[in-house]
C-alpha cells in the first residue's frame, strides 16, 4: 500500500520536526486524474513577495500524495493555486495534461474539489442540506434534485460516517463533527481529484484515523485523486493507515 503514497515536501524542511505540518495528497485509482503543478509562483494581492516561489508537484492518479512542510511554508496557498482559487503569477496547473484555465468553473468543480482549512456556514443549516450543496456544480440553475444527486449525497454521508448527524444543525456540532460534515460535502461533489487542506484539524485521534481510512477507501474504491494536508499528529498515523 505504501507505494500508493507519495510525499512531496515544500521548502525542504525535514519531516518529524515538531513544527512540521503535513499535507498529504491521496490519489484515486485508474480513472482518477493526475494533477500537475509546474513551477508555480503564487502570491496574494496584499503582499509583495510570493508565498510560493516556483514549486512543482505531481499527484499521480490512484495514489495518495502527501504534501508536507512547516507552518507558513505555503501548503494551503499551493493547494489554492492547484484548485484555481488563486491565479498563479507564473507556472501552470494541469489536470490530466489539460490546463486548468481551460475548464469552465462548474466543470472544474466537477473534476477537482477543495476542502479549505477554514469553512463557515450558517448555524441553522442541517448536515444533509450542507452535503447537498456539494452537488451545486452538477446542477443547472433551475434543475431540481435528481436520483443521481441523492445517491451521491447518501454515499458521501455514508463514506464520511456522519449518517447519525444527518438531520442535526451544523451549529450544534462539535468542531470534529463539523469537519466530517464538510468532508461529506466535498465527497458529494464527486470529483476525480480531491484536495484536502489539513482535513484532520479539530479531530480527535479516533476521528483522525477515521478520516485517513475514508481517504484510503476512496483511493481503493473510486476514481479519486486526493491530495490532502494534515497536521503533525496525523503524519504519524498516515504511514499506518496508508
Amino acid at each position, binding site marked *: 500500500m505504501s507505494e500508493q503514497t507519495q510525499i512531496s515536501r515544500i521548502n525542504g524542511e525535514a519531516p518529524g520536526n515538531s513544527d512540521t505540518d503535513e499535507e498529504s495528497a491521496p490519489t484515486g485509482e485508474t480513472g482518477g486524474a493526475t494533477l500537475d503543478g509546474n513551477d508555480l509562483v503564487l502570491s496574494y494581492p496584499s503582499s509583495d513577495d510570493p508565498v510560493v516561489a516556483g514549486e512543482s508537484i505531481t499527484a499521480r492518479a490512484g495514489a495518495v500524495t502527501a504534501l508536507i512542510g512547516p507552518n507558513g511554508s505555503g501548503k494551503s496557498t499551493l493547494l489554492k493555486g492547484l484548485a484555481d482559487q488563486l491565479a498563479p503569477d507564473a507556472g501552470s496547473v494541469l489536470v490530466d495534461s489539460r490546463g486548468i484555465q481551460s475548464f469552465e*468553473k462548474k466543470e472544474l468543480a*466537477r473534476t477537482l474539489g477543495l476542502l479549505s482549512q477554514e*469553512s*463557515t456556514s450558517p*448555524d441553522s*443549516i442541517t448536515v444533509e442540506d450542507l452535503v447537498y450543496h456539494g452537488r451545486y456544480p452538477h446542477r443547472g440553475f433551475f434543475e*431540481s434534485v435528481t436520483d443521481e444527486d441523492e445517491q451521491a449525497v447518501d454515499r458521501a454521508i455514508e463514506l464520511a460516517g456522519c449518517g447519525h448527524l444527518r438531520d442535526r444543525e451544523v451549529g450544534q456540532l462539535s468542531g470534529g463533527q463539523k469537519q466530517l460534515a464538510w468532508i461529506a460535502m466535498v465527497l458529494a461533489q464527486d470529483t476525480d481529484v480531491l484536495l484536502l487542506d489539513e482535513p484532520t484539524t479539530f479531530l480527535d485521534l479516533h476521528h483522525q484515523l477515521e478520516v485517513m481510512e475514508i481517504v484510503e477507501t476512496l483511493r481503493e474504491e473510486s476514481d479519486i485523486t486526493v491530495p490532502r494536508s494534515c497536521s503533525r499528529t496525523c503524519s504519524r498515523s498516515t504511514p499506518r493507515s496508508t
Partner: protein
Amino acid sequence: MPEGSVQDETTSRRRERVFVRVDGSLLSLCLGSVAVVVAGGLVQVSFGAYSMTILEAWRAVFDPAVVFSGQAWEAFLLGGELPEMGKRSLIVWNIRLPRVFVGALVGMNLAVSGAIFQAVTRNELASPFILGVSSGAGLMILLTLVVFSGLSAFLPLIASIGGAVAFLIVYAIAWKNGTSPVRLVLAGVIVGTVFGSVQTALFFFADDIGVVQSAIAWTTGSLTGTDWEQVRMALPWTAVAMLLGLVSSRQLNVLLLGESTASSLGMSVEKVRFALSGVAVLAAAASIAVAGIVGFVGLIVPHMVRNIVGSDYRKLVIGCVFAGPALMVAADVGARLALNPVQIPVGIVTGLVGGPYFLYLMRKQDNMGEI
C-alpha cells in the same frame, strides 16, 4: 422490505427537497402574516374622511359588482375607464384599498431586498439601503424638488434611477480585482455619507415649507395619497424581483457558505453577487418609486423571519414575501390613523416599531451580526 415502500420513501424525500419540507413554522408565519394583512386592510378601509359604518365598508370590499367585474380590474390594473359603482364601493376600492396594496408590495420588496443583501454581504445588519441606494435616491429627490422642480412629475422614476446609479458607484468604488462583502459595505457607507451631506445641504435651499415637507415624506417613506397608479407602477417590477428572488434562493444559500467554498463549488461568485445585488436593487427601487425611502422594514423583516424559519433561503425568501407586507400594512394603519386627521410618514412608524423590536432581538440573541 418491499421495494415499493423504499421507492415511496425516496420520492417523498425528493418532494420534500423540491417544495422545501412542509415546514410548520413557515406555514404558520405565512398564515399569520396573511391574517395581519387582511386585518390591517379591513381597518384601513373602515376609517377615513368619508364616514361610513364598518359594516358598510366591509360590504363594499366584498361587493360582487366590483370583485367579479373584469372591467373594474382592468381599470385598476391597466388604467382604463372605471365602471359604474356605488359611492361606497368607489371610495373603498379606489381610494382606501390601493393604499393597502401598495403597502403590501412595498413591504415584500423591501423584505426580500434586505434578505438578499444580507446574504450578499453575509451580514445580518445589512438592509436594502446598505449599498448606497437610499442616499442616491434621497439626493435625487432633493435635487428634483429643490433645484429641478419642473421635473417633479417624474420624481418616482428619478428617485429609483438615483438609487440604482448610487449602487453602481458603490460597486465601482469597491471593485479592485473583484469585491468583498466588507469593501462593498465600506464603499456603501462612504457614498452614503457624501450623498447624505449634499442632501442635507440642499434642504437649506428649499424656500418653501411645503417643499421641505414633501422632501421629508419622500426621504422617510410615505404611503399618503397612493393610488392604483402606484400599484400599476410597482406591480410588474415586484413580480419580476420576487420571482428572481425565489429562484435564486439556492445561489443565496451557497453564497452563505463563504466566497472560497462557493467558488470551489463552481460558482462565479462575482457574477452571482452582482446579479443578486441587481435583483435586490430592482426591488428596492420599485418600492422607492411608490413610497419613498421606507427604513427598517428591509432590515427587520428578514431578521424576524430568520428567527422563525432559520437561515435556509428557500424558506427565508418565501417568509419575507409574506411577512414584509404584514409589517408594512400594520405600520401604515398606525401612520394613517394614530394621529387622525394628521397622517405621518409610514417610515416614522416602522422606525418606531422596528427599533425597539430590534433591540429586543439583540438582547435576546447572543451572537448577532453574522448569519
